Protein backbone atom coordinates (compact mmCIF):
# COMPACT_ATOMS: atom_id res chain seq x y z
CA UNK A 1 0.00 0.00 0.00
CA UNK A 2 1.21 3.44 -0.93
CA UNK A 3 2.07 6.01 1.74
CA UNK A 4 -0.72 8.35 0.63
CA UNK A 5 -3.59 6.86 -1.27
CA UNK A 6 -6.64 8.59 -2.67
CA UNK A 7 -9.03 5.73 -3.05
CA UNK A 8 -11.85 5.66 -5.63
CA UNK A 9 -12.85 9.14 -4.77
CA UNK A 10 -15.89 10.88 -6.24
CA UNK A 11 -17.15 14.35 -5.45
CA UNK A 12 -20.58 15.79 -6.19
CA UNK A 13 -21.54 19.42 -5.70
CA UNK A 14 -25.16 20.46 -5.32
CA UNK A 15 -26.09 22.21 -8.58
CA UNK A 16 -26.95 25.89 -8.52
CA UNK A 17 -30.20 25.44 -10.41
CA UNK A 18 -31.42 22.91 -7.88
CA UNK A 19 -31.28 19.94 -10.27
CA UNK A 20 -29.20 16.81 -9.96
CA UNK A 21 -25.89 17.25 -8.17
CA UNK A 22 -22.95 17.95 -10.45
CA UNK A 23 -20.16 15.39 -10.48
CA UNK A 24 -16.85 17.23 -10.12
CA UNK A 25 -14.57 14.22 -10.50
CA UNK A 26 -15.26 10.55 -10.60
CA UNK A 27 -13.51 7.50 -9.25
CA UNK A 28 -10.13 9.12 -8.80
CA UNK A 29 -7.40 6.86 -7.47
CA UNK A 30 -3.93 8.23 -6.79
CA UNK A 31 -1.08 6.42 -5.09
CA UNK A 32 1.85 8.45 -3.79
CA UNK A 33 4.94 6.91 -2.23
CA UNK A 34 6.73 8.36 0.75
CA UNK A 35 8.98 11.26 -0.25
CA UNK A 36 7.44 11.57 -3.69
CA UNK A 37 6.59 14.92 -5.24
CA UNK A 38 3.43 14.54 -7.30
CA UNK A 39 1.69 17.31 -9.19
CA UNK A 40 -1.77 17.44 -10.71
CA UNK A 41 -2.33 19.68 -13.70
CA UNK A 42 -5.67 20.57 -15.16
CA UNK A 43 -7.74 23.46 -16.40
CA UNK A 44 -9.36 25.81 -13.90
CA UNK A 45 -12.53 24.31 -12.55
CA UNK A 46 -11.59 20.68 -13.15
CA UNK A 47 -11.72 20.04 -9.42
CA UNK A 48 -8.03 19.79 -8.67
CA UNK A 49 -8.25 22.25 -5.80
CA UNK A 50 -11.27 20.39 -4.45
CA UNK A 51 -9.21 17.22 -4.60
CA UNK A 52 -6.45 18.89 -2.60
CA UNK A 53 -8.92 20.26 -0.06
CA UNK A 54 -10.34 16.79 0.44
CA UNK A 55 -6.87 15.36 1.07
CA UNK A 56 -6.34 18.18 3.57
CA UNK A 57 -9.62 17.23 5.22
CA UNK A 58 -11.14 20.66 4.64
CA UNK A 59 -13.85 19.19 2.41
CA UNK A 60 -15.33 15.73 2.48
CA UNK A 61 -15.59 13.41 -0.51
CA UNK A 62 -18.95 12.08 -1.71
CA UNK A 63 -17.47 8.63 -2.18
CA UNK A 64 -14.09 7.10 -1.44
CA UNK A 65 -11.49 8.28 1.02
CA UNK A 66 -7.91 9.20 1.83
CA UNK A 67 -5.51 6.71 3.38
CA UNK A 68 -2.34 8.10 4.90
CA UNK A 69 0.30 5.73 6.24
CA UNK A 70 -2.21 2.89 6.45
CA UNK A 71 -4.89 4.88 8.26
CA UNK A 72 -7.90 6.71 6.97
CA UNK A 73 -7.36 10.47 7.14
CA UNK A 74 -10.72 12.14 7.56
CA UNK A 75 -10.88 15.74 8.72
CA UNK A 76 -8.00 18.19 8.89
CA UNK A 77 -4.84 17.43 10.84
CA UNK A 78 -1.30 18.55 11.48
CA UNK A 79 0.02 15.67 9.36
CA UNK A 80 -1.28 17.31 6.16
CA UNK A 81 -0.34 21.00 5.97
CA UNK A 82 -1.52 23.21 3.13
CA UNK A 83 0.34 26.05 1.44
CA UNK A 84 -2.51 28.23 0.20
CA UNK A 85 -2.78 30.04 -3.09
CA UNK A 86 -3.64 33.31 -1.34
CA UNK A 87 -1.19 32.65 1.51
CA UNK A 88 -3.80 32.54 4.33
CA UNK A 89 -1.54 34.42 6.72
CA UNK A 90 -3.32 36.08 9.63
CA UNK A 91 -3.00 39.80 8.83
CA UNK A 92 -3.26 40.73 12.52
CA UNK A 93 -0.16 38.71 13.42
CA UNK A 94 3.49 39.36 12.67
CA UNK A 95 5.50 36.98 10.51
CA UNK A 96 6.96 35.44 13.65
CA UNK A 97 3.56 35.01 15.33
CA UNK A 98 2.04 33.46 12.21
CA UNK A 99 4.67 30.74 12.19
CA UNK A 100 4.74 30.41 15.97
CA UNK A 101 0.99 29.77 16.02
CA UNK A 102 1.60 26.71 13.85
CA UNK A 103 4.70 25.53 15.73
CA UNK A 104 2.96 25.80 19.09
CA UNK A 105 0.05 23.80 17.74
CA UNK A 106 2.34 21.12 16.32
CA UNK A 107 4.60 20.82 19.38
CA UNK A 108 2.42 21.61 22.38
CA UNK A 109 4.94 20.27 24.90
CA UNK A 110 7.85 22.44 23.78
CA UNK A 111 8.83 25.41 25.93
CA UNK A 112 8.94 29.01 24.75
CA UNK A 113 12.65 29.09 23.91
CA UNK A 114 12.52 25.92 21.89
CA UNK A 115 9.50 27.13 19.93
CA UNK A 116 11.12 30.52 19.27
CA UNK A 117 14.35 28.88 18.12
CA UNK A 118 12.43 26.59 15.78
CA UNK A 119 10.49 29.54 14.31
CA UNK A 120 13.69 31.54 13.82
CA UNK A 121 15.31 28.58 12.09
CA UNK A 122 12.56 28.39 9.48
CA UNK A 123 12.39 32.17 9.04
CA UNK A 124 16.11 32.08 8.27
CA UNK A 125 15.60 29.14 5.93
CA UNK A 126 13.25 31.15 3.69
CA UNK A 127 15.52 34.21 3.87
CA UNK A 128 13.13 36.39 5.88
CA UNK A 129 15.56 37.27 8.66
CA UNK A 130 14.82 40.82 9.75
CA UNK A 131 11.17 40.66 8.74
CA UNK A 132 10.03 38.77 11.88
CA UNK A 133 8.10 41.68 13.33
CA UNK A 134 6.49 42.78 10.07
CA UNK A 135 2.86 42.13 9.35
CA UNK A 136 1.80 40.39 6.13
CA UNK A 137 0.44 43.67 4.71
CA UNK A 138 3.96 45.04 4.65
CA UNK A 139 5.27 42.09 2.60
CA UNK A 140 5.30 41.46 -1.14
CA UNK A 141 3.48 38.44 -2.55
CA UNK A 142 6.69 36.49 -2.79
CA UNK A 143 7.63 37.21 0.81
CA UNK A 144 4.15 36.28 1.98
CA UNK A 145 4.40 32.89 0.36
CA UNK A 146 7.86 32.42 1.87
CA UNK A 147 6.13 32.82 5.23
CA UNK A 148 3.49 30.34 4.07
CA UNK A 149 6.21 27.84 3.13
CA UNK A 150 8.10 28.41 6.38
CA UNK A 151 4.89 27.84 8.34
CA UNK A 152 4.18 24.63 6.44
CA UNK A 153 7.70 23.19 6.66
CA UNK A 154 8.07 24.25 10.30
CA UNK A 155 5.43 21.83 11.53
CA UNK A 156 7.15 19.01 9.61
CA UNK A 157 3.99 17.44 8.21
CA UNK A 158 3.87 13.97 6.71
CA UNK A 159 2.29 15.39 3.59
CA UNK A 160 2.71 18.87 2.21
CA UNK A 161 -0.19 20.08 0.06
CA UNK A 162 0.61 22.93 -2.29
CA UNK A 163 -2.48 24.62 -3.74
CA UNK A 164 -1.25 26.65 -6.72
CA UNK A 165 1.28 28.17 -4.34
CA UNK A 166 2.98 30.49 -6.82
CA UNK A 167 -0.01 31.56 -8.91
CA UNK A 168 -0.25 34.98 -7.28
CA UNK A 169 3.45 35.75 -7.37
CA UNK A 170 5.12 37.73 -10.17
CA UNK A 171 6.99 35.62 -12.71
CA UNK A 172 10.51 36.70 -11.74
CA UNK A 173 10.07 36.03 -8.03
CA UNK A 174 8.23 32.79 -8.78
CA UNK A 175 11.32 31.15 -10.24
CA UNK A 176 13.43 32.11 -7.22
CA UNK A 177 10.92 30.74 -4.73
CA UNK A 178 10.51 27.56 -6.75
CA UNK A 179 14.21 26.88 -6.37
CA UNK A 180 14.04 27.71 -2.67
CA UNK A 181 11.24 25.19 -2.39
CA UNK A 182 13.39 22.55 -4.10
CA UNK A 183 16.18 23.18 -1.60
CA UNK A 184 13.87 22.98 1.38
CA UNK A 185 12.28 19.83 0.05
CA UNK A 186 15.72 18.29 -0.63
CA UNK A 187 16.54 18.45 3.06
CA UNK A 188 13.10 17.60 4.45
CA UNK A 189 11.95 15.10 1.80
CA UNK A 190 8.30 15.45 2.71
CA UNK A 191 5.73 13.77 0.56
CA UNK A 192 4.28 16.53 -1.57
CA UNK A 193 1.03 16.79 -3.48
CA UNK A 194 0.76 19.95 -5.57
CA UNK A 195 -1.91 21.28 -7.89
CA UNK A 196 -1.05 23.90 -10.47
CA UNK A 197 -1.74 24.95 -14.03
CA UNK A 198 1.83 26.05 -14.66
CA UNK A 199 3.49 23.33 -16.78
CA UNK A 200 7.07 24.55 -16.30
CA UNK A 201 6.61 24.71 -12.55
CA UNK A 202 5.28 21.15 -12.52
CA UNK A 203 8.21 19.79 -14.55
CA UNK A 204 10.80 21.63 -12.47
CA UNK A 205 9.45 20.39 -9.14
CA UNK A 206 7.75 17.04 -9.61
CA UNK A 207 8.61 13.38 -9.85
CA UNK A 208 5.33 12.63 -11.58
CA UNK A 209 2.63 14.77 -13.16
CA UNK A 210 -1.00 13.66 -13.21
CA UNK A 211 -3.08 15.14 -16.00
CA UNK A 212 -6.69 15.76 -15.17
CA UNK A 213 -9.44 16.06 -17.76
CA UNK A 214 -11.97 18.84 -17.56
CA UNK A 215 -15.06 18.49 -15.43
CA UNK A 216 -17.81 17.71 -14.90
CA UNK A 217 -16.89 14.12 -14.21
CA UNK A 218 -13.17 14.83 -14.42
CA UNK A 219 -10.69 12.03 -13.99
CA UNK A 220 -6.95 11.46 -14.00
CA UNK A 221 -6.20 10.57 -17.62
CA UNK A 222 -2.43 10.34 -17.70
CA UNK A 223 0.49 9.83 -15.39
CA UNK A 224 3.56 11.55 -16.86
CA UNK A 225 6.92 10.57 -15.39
CA UNK A 226 9.34 13.49 -15.19
CA UNK A 227 12.40 11.61 -16.42
CA UNK A 228 14.85 14.39 -15.68
CA UNK A 229 17.36 13.62 -12.94
CA UNK A 230 17.66 15.79 -9.86
CA UNK A 231 19.12 18.13 -8.79
CA UNK A 232 17.30 20.36 -11.23
CA UNK A 233 17.71 24.06 -11.79
CA UNK A 234 15.62 26.36 -13.93
CA UNK A 235 18.53 27.21 -16.20
CA UNK A 236 19.81 23.71 -16.87
CA UNK A 237 16.57 21.77 -16.89
CA UNK A 238 15.49 23.13 -20.27
CA UNK A 239 18.60 21.61 -21.88
CA UNK A 240 17.58 18.10 -20.95
CA UNK A 241 16.33 16.19 -24.06
CA UNK A 242 13.12 15.16 -22.28
CA UNK A 243 12.15 18.63 -21.10
CA UNK A 244 10.37 19.78 -24.25
CA UNK A 245 9.01 16.31 -24.94
CA UNK A 246 7.27 16.34 -21.57
CA UNK A 247 6.26 19.96 -21.86
CA UNK A 248 4.79 19.56 -25.34
CA UNK A 249 3.02 16.40 -24.33
CA UNK A 250 1.33 18.10 -21.41
CA UNK A 251 0.40 21.19 -23.38
CA UNK A 252 -1.05 19.07 -26.15
CA UNK A 253 -3.06 17.21 -23.61
CA UNK A 254 -4.36 20.41 -22.06
CA UNK A 255 -5.29 21.87 -25.43
CA UNK A 256 -6.79 18.78 -27.02
CA UNK A 257 -8.37 16.80 -24.25
CA UNK A 258 -10.58 19.54 -23.03
CA UNK A 259 -13.44 17.40 -21.88
CA UNK A 260 -13.78 13.87 -20.67
CA UNK A 261 -16.09 12.93 -23.56
CA UNK A 262 -13.71 14.07 -26.29
CA UNK A 263 -10.81 12.44 -24.57
CA UNK A 264 -12.38 8.98 -24.53
CA UNK A 265 -12.86 9.05 -28.27
CA UNK A 266 -9.48 10.36 -29.33
CA UNK A 267 -6.47 8.75 -27.77
CA UNK A 268 -7.07 5.97 -25.31
CA UNK A 269 -8.93 3.73 -27.74
CA UNK A 270 -9.17 0.20 -26.48
CA UNK A 271 -7.07 0.78 -23.38
CA UNK A 272 -8.54 0.46 -19.90
CA UNK A 273 -10.03 3.91 -19.28
CA UNK A 274 -10.28 3.46 -15.58
CA UNK A 275 -6.54 3.73 -14.98
CA UNK A 276 -4.39 6.58 -16.19
CA UNK A 277 -2.07 5.92 -19.10
CA UNK A 278 1.57 6.03 -18.02
CA UNK A 279 3.75 8.30 -20.14
CA UNK A 280 7.46 7.64 -19.67
CA UNK A 281 9.89 9.06 -22.20
CA UNK A 282 12.79 7.14 -20.65
CA UNK A 283 11.11 3.81 -21.44
CA UNK A 284 10.17 5.10 -24.88
CA UNK A 285 13.77 5.95 -25.69
CA UNK A 286 15.02 2.58 -24.44
CA UNK A 287 12.37 0.76 -26.46
CA UNK A 288 13.42 2.56 -29.63
CA UNK A 289 17.10 1.68 -29.23
Amino acid at each position, binding site marked *: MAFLQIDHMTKFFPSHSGGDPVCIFKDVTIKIEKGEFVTTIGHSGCGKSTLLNII*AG*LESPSEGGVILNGREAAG*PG*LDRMVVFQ*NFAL*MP*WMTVFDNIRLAVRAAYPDWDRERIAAHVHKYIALVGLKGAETK*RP*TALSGGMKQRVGLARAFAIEPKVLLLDEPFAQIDALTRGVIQEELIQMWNTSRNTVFMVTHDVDEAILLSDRILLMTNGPGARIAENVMVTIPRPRARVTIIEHPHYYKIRNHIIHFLVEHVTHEEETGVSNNGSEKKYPRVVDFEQETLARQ
Partner: protein
Amino acid sequence: MAMQGKSSPWMISCFLLAVFLLAWHFFTLRPAFEPRGMSEEQLKMLEFNGDIVRTSEGGYAWNPEKEKVKGVPGPLMVFDKARTELAEAFVKKGTNDHGIAYLVAYTVSRFAAGFLAASVVAIMLGVLLGLNKALFQAVNPFIQILKPISPLAWMPLLLYTVKDPKWTAVLVVFMAAVWPTLATTAFGVSSLRKDYLHVAAILQLTWFKRLYKVILPGAAPTIVNGLRISFGSALVAVVPAEMLLGELGVGYLSWIEWNNLDIAGVIFAILVVGVVGVILDSGFNKLAGFVTYQE
Protein backbone atom coordinates in the same frame (compact mmCIF):
# COMPACT_ATOMS: atom_id res chain seq x y z
CA MET B 1 -4.54 85.29 -1.49
CA ALA B 2 -1.45 83.19 -0.97
CA MET B 3 -2.20 83.07 2.74
CA GLN B 4 -5.74 81.97 2.08
CA GLY B 5 -4.56 79.03 -0.01
CA LYS B 6 -2.41 77.78 2.84
CA SER B 7 -4.83 78.53 5.69
CA SER B 8 -5.15 75.52 7.99
CA PRO B 9 -8.48 73.92 8.86
CA TRP B 10 -7.84 75.02 12.43
CA MET B 11 -7.89 78.65 11.40
CA ILE B 12 -11.09 78.16 9.44
CA SER B 13 -12.65 76.47 12.47
CA CYS B 14 -11.69 79.37 14.72
CA PHE B 15 -12.99 81.82 12.18
CA LEU B 16 -16.33 80.00 11.90
CA LEU B 17 -16.61 79.87 15.70
CA ALA B 18 -15.93 83.59 15.97
CA VAL B 19 -18.53 84.37 13.29
CA PHE B 20 -21.07 82.16 15.03
CA LEU B 21 -20.45 83.67 18.48
CA LEU B 22 -20.63 87.21 17.14
CA ALA B 23 -23.85 86.52 15.24
CA TRP B 24 -25.30 84.84 18.31
CA HIS B 25 -24.26 87.78 20.46
CA PHE B 26 -25.78 90.41 18.19
CA PHE B 27 -29.01 88.56 17.44
CA THR B 28 -29.71 88.04 21.13
CA LEU B 29 -28.66 91.53 22.20
CA ARG B 30 -31.58 93.49 23.66
CA PRO B 31 -31.60 97.29 23.76
CA ALA B 32 -31.07 98.83 27.19
CA PHE B 33 -34.22 99.89 29.04
CA GLU B 34 -35.48 103.20 27.73
CA PRO B 35 -37.66 104.98 30.34
CA ARG B 36 -38.37 107.96 28.12
CA GLY B 37 -41.99 108.31 27.15
CA MET B 38 -43.22 106.34 30.17
CA SER B 39 -45.18 107.80 33.01
CA GLU B 40 -44.06 107.44 36.64
CA GLU B 41 -47.08 105.14 37.10
CA GLN B 42 -45.97 102.78 34.35
CA LEU B 43 -42.40 102.63 35.66
CA LYS B 44 -43.62 101.82 39.16
CA MET B 45 -45.82 99.08 37.75
CA LEU B 46 -42.87 97.59 35.85
CA GLU B 47 -40.70 97.75 38.94
CA PHE B 48 -43.44 96.16 41.00
CA ASN B 49 -43.70 93.32 38.50
CA GLY B 50 -39.96 92.85 38.68
CA ASP B 51 -39.37 93.66 35.02
CA ILE B 52 -37.02 96.51 35.83
CA VAL B 53 -34.85 97.50 38.76
CA ARG B 54 -33.51 100.78 39.98
CA THR B 55 -29.82 101.25 39.29
CA SER B 56 -27.38 102.83 41.74
CA GLU B 57 -27.31 105.96 39.57
CA GLY B 58 -31.05 106.38 40.11
CA GLY B 59 -32.13 105.32 36.63
CA TYR B 60 -33.86 102.11 35.58
CA ALA B 61 -32.54 98.94 33.91
CA TRP B 62 -33.98 95.55 32.92
CA ASN B 63 -34.07 93.14 35.84
CA PRO B 64 -31.14 90.71 35.19
CA GLU B 65 -33.01 87.89 36.99
CA LYS B 66 -35.97 88.20 34.64
CA GLU B 67 -33.68 88.61 31.62
CA LYS B 68 -32.64 84.99 32.03
CA VAL B 69 -36.01 83.75 30.80
CA LYS B 70 -36.71 86.46 28.24
CA GLY B 71 -35.69 85.53 24.68
CA VAL B 72 -32.58 83.47 23.97
CA PRO B 73 -29.58 84.18 26.17
CA GLY B 74 -26.46 85.45 24.44
CA PRO B 75 -23.03 83.83 24.57
CA LEU B 76 -21.87 86.06 27.41
CA MET B 77 -24.68 84.87 29.65
CA VAL B 78 -23.93 81.24 28.80
CA PHE B 79 -20.26 81.89 29.47
CA ASP B 80 -21.18 83.44 32.84
CA LYS B 81 -23.33 80.44 33.67
CA ALA B 82 -20.54 78.06 32.67
CA ARG B 83 -18.09 79.91 34.88
CA THR B 84 -20.29 79.70 37.94
CA GLU B 85 -21.14 76.03 37.27
CA LEU B 86 -17.51 75.07 36.71
CA ALA B 87 -16.42 77.02 39.79
CA GLU B 88 -18.60 74.77 41.93
CA ALA B 89 -18.04 71.63 39.85
CA PHE B 90 -17.18 69.53 42.91
CA VAL B 91 -19.77 70.98 45.28
CA LYS B 92 -22.77 69.04 46.48
CA LYS B 93 -25.40 71.54 47.54
CA GLY B 94 -28.20 69.11 48.16
CA THR B 95 -29.59 65.71 47.20
CA ASN B 96 -30.48 66.92 43.72
CA ASP B 97 -28.00 69.74 43.30
CA HIS B 98 -24.63 68.18 42.60
CA GLY B 99 -21.73 69.91 40.87
CA ILE B 100 -21.20 69.43 37.16
CA ALA B 101 -18.22 67.10 37.71
CA TYR B 102 -20.44 64.71 39.65
CA LEU B 103 -23.14 64.88 36.99
CA VAL B 104 -20.62 64.04 34.26
CA ALA B 105 -19.29 61.19 36.38
CA TYR B 106 -22.80 59.79 36.89
CA THR B 107 -23.59 59.94 33.19
CA VAL B 108 -20.27 58.44 32.14
CA SER B 109 -20.51 55.57 34.63
CA ARG B 110 -24.12 54.86 33.64
CA PHE B 111 -23.15 54.97 29.99
CA ALA B 112 -20.07 52.80 30.52
CA ALA B 113 -21.99 50.15 32.50
CA GLY B 114 -24.72 49.83 29.89
CA PHE B 115 -22.39 49.98 26.92
CA LEU B 116 -19.87 47.47 28.28
CA ALA B 117 -22.54 44.99 29.33
CA ALA B 118 -24.24 45.33 25.94
CA SER B 119 -20.92 44.90 24.10
CA VAL B 120 -19.98 41.74 25.97
CA VAL B 121 -23.41 40.19 25.45
CA ALA B 122 -23.62 41.30 21.82
CA ILE B 123 -20.14 40.04 20.90
CA MET B 124 -20.68 36.65 22.56
CA LEU B 125 -24.07 36.16 20.93
CA GLY B 126 -22.77 37.57 17.64
CA VAL B 127 -19.88 35.09 17.51
CA LEU B 128 -22.30 32.26 18.27
CA LEU B 129 -24.65 33.35 15.48
CA GLY B 130 -21.80 34.09 13.07
CA LEU B 131 -20.46 30.57 13.44
CA ASN B 132 -23.83 28.89 13.08
CA LYS B 133 -25.48 29.85 9.83
CA ALA B 134 -28.79 28.12 10.52
CA LEU B 135 -29.10 29.70 13.94
CA PHE B 136 -28.21 33.11 12.47
CA GLN B 137 -30.93 32.82 9.86
CA ALA B 138 -33.39 31.67 12.50
CA VAL B 139 -32.65 34.50 14.91
CA ASN B 140 -32.12 37.25 12.34
CA PRO B 141 -35.84 38.16 11.92
CA PHE B 142 -36.08 38.84 15.66
CA ILE B 143 -32.98 41.01 15.58
CA GLN B 144 -34.37 42.93 12.64
CA ILE B 145 -37.61 43.62 14.55
CA LEU B 146 -35.89 44.55 17.80
CA LYS B 147 -33.16 46.68 16.22
CA PRO B 148 -35.26 49.66 15.04
CA ILE B 149 -37.18 49.98 18.32
CA SER B 150 -36.13 53.15 20.07
CA PRO B 151 -34.46 52.18 23.34
CA LEU B 152 -36.67 54.72 25.11
CA ALA B 153 -39.74 52.77 24.07
CA TRP B 154 -38.56 50.03 26.42
CA MET B 155 -38.36 52.38 29.38
CA PRO B 156 -41.85 52.04 30.86
CA LEU B 157 -41.62 48.28 30.64
CA LEU B 158 -38.14 48.22 32.12
CA LEU B 159 -39.12 50.61 34.89
CA TYR B 160 -42.10 48.41 35.67
CA THR B 161 -40.07 45.21 35.76
CA VAL B 162 -36.87 46.30 37.52
CA LYS B 163 -38.66 48.94 39.65
CA ASP B 164 -35.51 51.01 40.00
CA PRO B 165 -34.76 54.09 37.89
CA LYS B 166 -30.98 53.64 38.33
CA TRP B 167 -30.98 50.22 36.70
CA THR B 168 -33.62 51.27 34.19
CA ALA B 169 -31.33 54.00 32.86
CA VAL B 170 -28.48 51.50 32.51
CA LEU B 171 -30.79 49.04 30.78
CA VAL B 172 -31.99 51.70 28.34
CA VAL B 173 -28.35 52.30 27.39
CA PHE B 174 -27.92 48.53 27.13
CA MET B 175 -30.90 48.26 24.80
CA ALA B 176 -29.55 51.06 22.63
CA ALA B 177 -26.11 49.48 22.38
CA VAL B 178 -26.82 45.79 22.01
CA TRP B 179 -28.36 45.48 18.53
CA PRO B 180 -25.84 47.15 16.20
CA THR B 181 -22.91 45.26 17.75
CA LEU B 182 -24.83 41.99 17.68
CA ALA B 183 -25.76 42.33 14.01
CA THR B 184 -22.31 43.41 12.82
CA THR B 185 -20.45 40.85 14.93
CA ALA B 186 -22.56 38.04 13.51
CA PHE B 187 -21.93 39.40 10.03
CA GLY B 188 -18.20 39.87 10.62
CA VAL B 189 -17.71 36.37 11.98
CA SER B 190 -19.78 34.72 9.27
CA SER B 191 -17.91 36.55 6.52
CA LEU B 192 -14.47 35.82 7.98
CA ARG B 193 -12.21 34.51 5.23
CA LYS B 194 -12.49 30.73 5.08
CA ASP B 195 -8.70 30.45 4.74
CA TYR B 196 -8.18 31.58 8.34
CA LEU B 197 -10.60 28.97 9.62
CA HIS B 198 -8.95 26.37 7.41
CA VAL B 199 -5.56 27.15 8.92
CA ALA B 200 -7.08 26.93 12.40
CA ALA B 201 -8.65 23.59 11.50
CA ILE B 202 -5.43 22.12 10.11
CA LEU B 203 -3.47 23.31 13.15
CA GLN B 204 -6.10 21.59 15.32
CA LEU B 205 -6.45 24.67 17.53
CA THR B 206 -8.72 24.21 20.52
CA TRP B 207 -12.11 25.91 20.47
CA PHE B 208 -10.85 28.56 22.87
CA LYS B 209 -7.69 29.29 20.90
CA ARG B 210 -9.64 29.36 17.67
CA LEU B 211 -11.86 32.04 19.19
CA TYR B 212 -9.07 34.18 20.66
CA LYS B 213 -6.36 33.73 18.04
CA VAL B 214 -8.41 33.62 14.85
CA ILE B 215 -12.12 34.44 15.02
CA LEU B 216 -12.16 37.48 17.30
CA PRO B 217 -9.07 39.19 15.88
CA GLY B 218 -10.18 38.34 12.36
CA ALA B 219 -13.62 39.84 12.84
CA ALA B 220 -12.29 42.70 15.00
CA PRO B 221 -12.51 45.46 12.37
CA THR B 222 -16.17 44.63 11.68
CA ILE B 223 -16.94 44.25 15.38
CA VAL B 224 -15.37 47.65 16.07
CA ASN B 225 -17.58 49.20 13.40
CA GLY B 226 -20.63 47.74 15.16
CA LEU B 227 -19.36 48.98 18.51
CA ARG B 228 -18.95 52.45 17.04
CA ILE B 229 -22.59 52.53 15.92
CA SER B 230 -23.68 51.15 19.31
CA PHE B 231 -21.53 53.75 21.03
CA GLY B 232 -23.28 56.59 19.22
CA SER B 233 -26.75 55.25 19.81
CA ALA B 234 -26.02 54.60 23.50
CA LEU B 235 -24.74 58.14 23.89
CA VAL B 236 -27.91 59.43 22.26
CA ALA B 237 -30.08 57.29 24.56
CA VAL B 238 -28.47 58.17 27.87
CA VAL B 239 -29.54 61.84 27.83
CA PRO B 240 -33.32 61.41 27.41
CA ALA B 241 -33.22 58.41 29.77
CA GLU B 242 -31.87 60.65 32.51
CA MET B 243 -34.40 63.36 31.67
CA LEU B 244 -37.35 61.02 31.84
CA LEU B 245 -36.17 59.07 34.86
CA GLY B 246 -34.92 62.08 36.80
CA GLU B 247 -31.58 60.42 37.41
CA LEU B 248 -28.75 62.83 38.15
CA GLY B 249 -26.53 63.35 35.12
CA VAL B 250 -25.83 65.78 32.29
CA GLY B 251 -29.13 64.92 30.57
CA TYR B 252 -30.88 65.60 33.85
CA LEU B 253 -29.03 68.91 34.11
CA SER B 254 -30.49 70.06 30.82
CA TRP B 255 -34.00 69.19 32.01
CA ILE B 256 -33.68 70.67 35.48
CA GLU B 257 -32.38 73.94 34.03
CA TRP B 258 -35.43 74.01 31.81
CA ASN B 259 -37.60 73.49 34.86
CA ASN B 260 -35.74 76.39 36.47
CA LEU B 261 -36.45 78.43 33.31
CA ASP B 262 -32.69 78.99 33.04
CA ILE B 263 -32.13 78.88 29.29
CA ALA B 264 -28.43 79.71 29.62
CA GLY B 265 -28.20 76.65 31.87
CA VAL B 266 -29.92 74.54 29.20
CA ILE B 267 -27.41 75.68 26.60
CA PHE B 268 -24.55 75.00 28.99
CA ALA B 269 -25.92 71.48 29.61
CA ILE B 270 -26.13 70.87 25.85
CA LEU B 271 -22.49 71.92 25.48
CA VAL B 272 -21.47 69.62 28.33
CA VAL B 273 -23.22 66.70 26.59
CA GLY B 274 -21.29 67.51 23.42
CA VAL B 275 -17.94 67.73 25.18
CA VAL B 276 -18.53 64.48 27.09
CA GLY B 277 -19.46 62.79 23.81
CA VAL B 278 -16.32 63.99 22.06
CA ILE B 279 -14.06 62.85 24.90
CA LEU B 280 -15.67 59.40 25.08
CA ASP B 281 -15.54 59.07 21.32
CA SER B 282 -11.85 59.90 21.05
CA GLY B 283 -11.11 57.42 23.83
CA PHE B 284 -13.07 54.81 21.90
CA ASN B 285 -11.17 55.51 18.70
CA LYS B 286 -7.86 55.06 20.54
CA LEU B 287 -9.02 51.64 21.74
CA ALA B 288 -10.31 50.71 18.31
CA GLY B 289 -6.92 51.48 16.79
CA PHE B 290 -5.36 48.65 18.80
CA VAL B 291 -7.52 45.87 17.41
CA THR B 292 -7.93 46.76 13.74
CA TYR B 293 -5.56 45.54 11.06
CA GLN B 294 -5.01 46.07 7.36
CA GLU B 295 -5.94 43.30 4.98
